[in-house]
């Protein structure tokens, strides 16, 4: 019985801490979305659903949503495909395996700011590393940040660069948990390398991939730092996403209510997508594929 109290105590404590540091700001932001305020000091004015009506009728909102989804999906697909491939390579027996495995996670340690600065230094149209390389071959430099597709691609590539090691690490751990005898059984059953991958490796990685894609999805959808550091949403809002839009509204356009409304909508959409995702792909092994 004493143990029950300890568990309940810990549970209540956890709820309180979470409630304060997560729930508090969330509720405050939701509350704020029903008011207009130019700053946190001004007395806010109640406008009801006014902010929502305004935000949802803006093409910029829908453009940002589309941008965010495009960037998130491209980045996740690339991260997962690359991550699984690299993990499969690193999982083979070779000399120096431990060292290479350790090194492979290094980009993950790189502060985002540093990664973004390095990228800019490489890609800058006026003095970047690539420009010099191109110039030495007699070609002009392409302005990466000046075009919608290449700007998005830059953001995606930097995200892939920083976050693929995370996927590699998770998948490597997942690979260790697949019994070697399953591969032998598959070989005896007549399966070649591809069939072994489809019928043994991939199903064995299922739980890991579900979690990895979920986490990467949430983080990419809420991605702010890389976008802000690289493009600030430009050119012409072509890389604007919901997080940058919320920030822009709240802190650059002094529309706290509008920013809060964008953030709230973004939160609700993400929450419902996660719920649907977890229904379709339950993490719990026992519920899989039934």
């Amino acid at each position, binding site marked *: 019985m004493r143990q029950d109290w300890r568990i309940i105590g810990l549970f209540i404590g956890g709820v309180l801490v979470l409630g304060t540091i997560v729930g508090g700001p969330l509720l405050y932001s939701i509350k704020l979305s029903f008011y207009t305020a130019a700053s946190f000091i001004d007395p806010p004015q109640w406008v009801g659903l006014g902010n929502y009506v305004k935000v949802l009728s803006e093409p910029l909102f829908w453009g940002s949503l589309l941008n965010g989804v495009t960037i998130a999906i491209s980045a996740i697909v690339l991260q997962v495909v690359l991550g699984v491939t690299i993990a499969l390579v690193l999982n083979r027996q070779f000399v120096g395996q431990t060292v290479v495995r350790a090194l492979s996670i290094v980009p993950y340690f790189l502060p985002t700011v540093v990664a973004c600065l390095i990228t800019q230094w490489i890609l800058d149209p006026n003095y970047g590393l690539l420009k010099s390389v191109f110039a030495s071959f007699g070609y002009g430099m392409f302005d990466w940040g000046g075009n919608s597709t290449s700007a998005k691609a830059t953001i995606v590539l930097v995200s892939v660069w920083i976050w693929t090691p995370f996927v590699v690490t998770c998948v490597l751990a997942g690979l260790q948990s697949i*019994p070697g*005898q*399953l591969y*032998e*059984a*598959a*070989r*005896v*059953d*007549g*399966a*070649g390398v591809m*069939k072994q991958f489809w*019928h*043994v490796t991939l*199903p*064995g990685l*299922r739980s890991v991939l579900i979690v990895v894609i979920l986490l990467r999805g949430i983080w990419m959808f809420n991605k702010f730092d890389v976008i802000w550091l690289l493009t600030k949403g430009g050119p012409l809002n072509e890389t604007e996403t919901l997080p940058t839009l919320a920030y822009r509204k709240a802190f650059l356009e002094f529309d706290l209510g509008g920013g809060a409304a964008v953030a709230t909508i973004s939160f609700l959409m993400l929450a419902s997508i996660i719920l649907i995702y977890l229904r379709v792909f339950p993490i719990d*092994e*026992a519920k*899989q*594929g039934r």
Partner: protein
Amino acid sequence: MARVTLQNVAKSFGGDRGPWAVQDFSLDIADGELVVFVGPSGCGKSTTLRMLAGLDDVTSGKILIDGRDVTALPPKDRNIAMVFQNYALYPQKTVFENMAFGLRVRRTPQHEIDRRVRSAASSLGLEALLERKPRQLSGGQMQRVALGRALVRDPDVFLLDEPLSNLDAKLRVRTREEIATLHARLGATMIFVTHDQVEAMTLGDRIVIMRDGFIQQAGSPLDLYDRPANAFVATFIGSPEMNLIDGGLMRDGGALVMRSGGLSVNLPAQSFSGAERDVTLGIRPEHIERAETSTAFELVVGLVEQIGAQTYVLGKIDGNKIRAVFARDDALRAGDRIFVNLSQEKLHLFSRESGKTLRRTSTKGENGNGRELHGQAQLRRAELQG
């Protein structure tokens, strides 16, 4: 169905210099034969099976299936099926798909897959479980699925690596019988690995006993029981273990005498080659018989174990530890002194140095098969006792 031949197969996991997991393994397995590999842990049973399956390369030697050299072929081109010790069922596939996988890989038509899986499932009693996942099955059910997966493939050779070791005693016996029935029905070539000698004796047409990577002896169960090639085989087969008594062999007039402590056993000169001096005498517990007369050996009973139908006795004859099996005797107690005879035709004699059976200097030569001990082994109380 197929004939399997291994020619001087050897395997080392450390290149050409060893250590060797399997050495000089030569065996011819007839079409439809059920051969059991048996031996203590680490003797190379699994390695041999894996080389047959193509999962491990051979270091030297050749493997032929139906006369075709498969030594260099990958598993999928050998048409073998293997049942693994821990089943190795695909955890995300249903029982049906587990069994069907080998057929799907080979692009078998769907109706044929259905037919074969259902027929295997019905012969193994798995019909009700076809839609379940492996984790929803008991050990015995998983075992049967693993067997079913091998069955549907209709392979040339079945390889079974300790398939019963994870089952409880009752289920073991039942599955063992199922495998025997299956073998009889299919007439398939099967190789069965176990370290359980009872399993080997009951299941095998032929038993291959291995130790330290070498074949010790290959033969029918009773052949191994009656005519073990060496002391290792003699003690490995049979339960309780054969009694071994170390002693010295000497000539006493025309007869051979084996002496150990106070015990002296006369052996007729023509029964065993008497070249060696240090020998080991072997007698199985069940070949020790109760006797009435005091001309027999005196056994001092140490421990009595009642098995039900039989009574096991651990005792001493002239200081030598002896295990004996008698018909049930409720009255036997520790400390009792009883008289026993050693069944004379059932005596074995081994070289102490090599452990090899010391064969009768017979005209039949060295192959040992068909050898019989009908020379009257004379047993008598030692005159030198005291």
